[in-house]
């Protein structure tokens, strides 16, 4: 025993040793006997439950006999037409009654999950382009959207763009919808409110590609698939009072200062700012015009003290007859952009624009065209121009096939004739985009 017990216990009295020995034996016996005891208890429990069940069966049999013996009762009177309607007890906006459950019992646990969607954007190209070649075939972008209401004061939107080279947060922002004085604020990473097309996601463009002016003056290079002003920051906008049913909205945005090759922040104070004023009016219920003016200012990659300023004007004329809105519509849009970029020895001032028109031929067919002309921000003496013809087919509103014949004349005296084609397909819920 002494070998088993540690040295400190070797000196304890014999009586204490006996107590410990007996206690240990008792514990061992208890452990050995435990399963038997438990088994006996389980048997007792089972018998008790069986008895209870037998009693319930007898009670039910008695009830059934009583029901069979009773005379058939008259059918229940039809419920009176409801004269009052119960106020909903659940969350407002949710239909009364049980919600359909599609994914089993755990589906209810998913009701607060954001609306999810994926848009596949597959692009192909044929023809020759030595300056800005598209790959022959590529899944250029898969846009994953996650959108939900955050709380009574805000909603959140995430658009993750998964390209062939990795994943990027295309946009991810919270919108504060319950601010006083009619203010609307967005915080996060966003496409800036500069002009109209800058805020479009790739899959909402009326063309396969973006206009040349977006590459040359709004950041990015001709090799990039996605360009434009997008950055992390804060956006505040407000609808302004105006006469005669004119819609007027002012937007002010402050960003970190890094956006493609347009802005580059060398230090924390190198923020960029974007401002936009847009007006909209209905000529008739079918025809409307939107005009906008935009301004962006930020530091460029020459250094912290070198500023790039961009000015923009845009106009969109739309026609859509309400009775035949799903068959015919027309849109003309144009954007003019001026850029001023401070460099070490000079300040190149460049100009560019595009004009485009789309017409809906029928429920599934659209035809359109675009003309591009743009100088290059770093060298205004060089300019590119291009013209495109676009034909779009919609098997359904979630599926789109598009072809674009494009002829581009680059400053390097190169002419590129190409056929671009695109397959767009939407899975799941994809929230509506703003007008």
């Amino acid at each position, binding site marked *: 025993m002494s070998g088993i017990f540690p040295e400190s216990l070797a000196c304890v009295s014999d009586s204490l040793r006996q107590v410990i020995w007996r206690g240990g034996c008792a514990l061992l016996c208890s452990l050995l006997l435990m399963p038997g005891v438990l088994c006996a208890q389980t048997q007792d429990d089972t018998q008790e439950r069986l008895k209870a069940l037998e009693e319930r069966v007898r009670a039910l049999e008695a009830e059934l006999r009583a029901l069979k013996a009773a005379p058939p009762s008259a059918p229940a009177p039809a419920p009176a037409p409801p004269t009052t309607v119960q106020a909903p007890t659940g969350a*407002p906006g949710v239909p009364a009654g049980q919600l359909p459950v599609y994914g089993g019992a755990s589906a209810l646990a998913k009701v607060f999950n954001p609306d999810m969607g994926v848009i596949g954007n597959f692009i192909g190209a044929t023809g020759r382009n030595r300056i800005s070649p598209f790959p022959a075939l590529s899944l250029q972008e898969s846009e994953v959207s996650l959108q939900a209401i955050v709380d009574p004061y805000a909603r959140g939107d995430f658009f993750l763009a998964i390209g062939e080279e990795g994943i990027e947060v295309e946009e991810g922002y919270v919108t504060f919808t*319950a601010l006083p004085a009619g203010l609307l604020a967005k915080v996060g990473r966003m496409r800036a409110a500069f002009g109209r097309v800058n805020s479009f996601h790739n899959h909402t463009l009326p063309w396969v590609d973006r206009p040349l002016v977006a590459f040359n003056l709004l950041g990015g290079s001709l090799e990039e698939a996605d360009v434009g002003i997008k950055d992390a920051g804060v956006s505040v906008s407000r609808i302004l009072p105006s006469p005669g049913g004119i*819609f007027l909205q002012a937007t002010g945005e402050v960003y970190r200062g890094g956006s493609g090759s347009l802005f580059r922040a060398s230090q924390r104070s190198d923020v960029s700012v974007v401002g936009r004023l847009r007006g909209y009016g209905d000529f008739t219920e079918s025809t409307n015009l939107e005009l906008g003016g935009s301004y962006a200012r930020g530091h460029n990659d020459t250094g912290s003290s070198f500023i790039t300023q961009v000015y923009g004007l845009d106009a969109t004329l739309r026609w859509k007859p*309400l009775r035949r809105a799903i068959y015919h519509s027309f849109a003309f849009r144009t954007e003019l952009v001026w850029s001023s970029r401070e460099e070490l020895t000079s300040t190149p001032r460049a100009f560019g624009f595009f004009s485009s028109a789309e017409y809906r031929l029928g429920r599934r067919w659209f035809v359109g065209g675009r003309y591009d002309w743009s100088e290059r921000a770093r060298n205004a003496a060089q300019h590119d121009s291009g013209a495109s013809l676009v034909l779009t087919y919609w098997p359904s509103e979630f599926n789109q096939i598009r072809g674009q014949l494009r002829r581009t004349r680059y400053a390097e005296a190169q002419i590129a004739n190409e056929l671009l084609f695109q397959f767009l397909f939407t899975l799941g819920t994809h929230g509506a985009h703003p007008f």
Partner: protein
Amino acid sequence: MTQRCNRFRFLLSLSAVVLVLLAVCTPAQAAAKLIVVTTTQDLAALAQEIGGDRIAVDAIARGYQDPHFVEAKPSFLLKLRKADLLIVVGLQLEISWLPPLITQCGNPRIQIGAPGYLDASQFAEILEIPTAPVTRAMGDVHPFGNPHYWLDPENGRRIARGIQMKLAQMKPEDAAYFEMRFQSFSKRLQEAERRWDEQLKTFQGRKVVTYHRSWPNLAKRFGLNVIGYVEPRAGIPPSPGHLVELIQLMQRENVKIILVEPYFDLKTPNSVARESGAQVLVLLPSVGGEKEVTDYFLLFDYDIALLQGAFTRVQ
């Protein structure tokens, strides 16, 4: 250092301009009347029945346009930013255009979940609620049920009651007025229903074909038997193969009426009608579908008279 000061001054002046701009533009004074905006003219008509002269009501979508595809025009934001109450059809009818309008209007009163947001579908009897998994292979299917539920007068009564309760809650001093108007509306509706039932009494169970699935509530209430659709699946334009099958079905079942909503092109229904010996009827799914259809009663008056006339002609 000077450049940094310049930058700071620039940002400061920009912020000041924005702040002044915002401060000058104070929100509009609350009007004495409750401002109600609805997504469709049907809901506007029902709200008007209850609200009378104590509310100012306006609708976004016109009765002759497809309520699934409305452009979210900025001019609608002007309506929404002043609204005290927004009433929607719900069941995802407006999903492709309403959410960005609500988000962008800068009006906390009508955000989803706020007291000024009312989904009328919670009061109505909803048909065609899917009981099996739904996929887009079924077309533009509504997973919570058919959203064209206002085309049953009983649902109209229920929606009106829901609106009355909401208005009473928002304007308690006029609660008795709203209750009185609801009772009057309900009574007039009861009388009108007797008239409409009488008009269609002899045509119960008549088989019809419709373009879109807009009419389940109307068909159930007035005993029409919808046996086919011009659209093969919701929101999907018809294929030639489907039209051939439809014509055969109509000939086999002796269907003489094709109901078409005013926003669909009549070319396809007309050719189906020619082949099958049927008539095309442009039935109105909404108040405002025609100039003279200015309220909820006139909508049924128009549709029931049209159906009665057509059934009589093809007898």
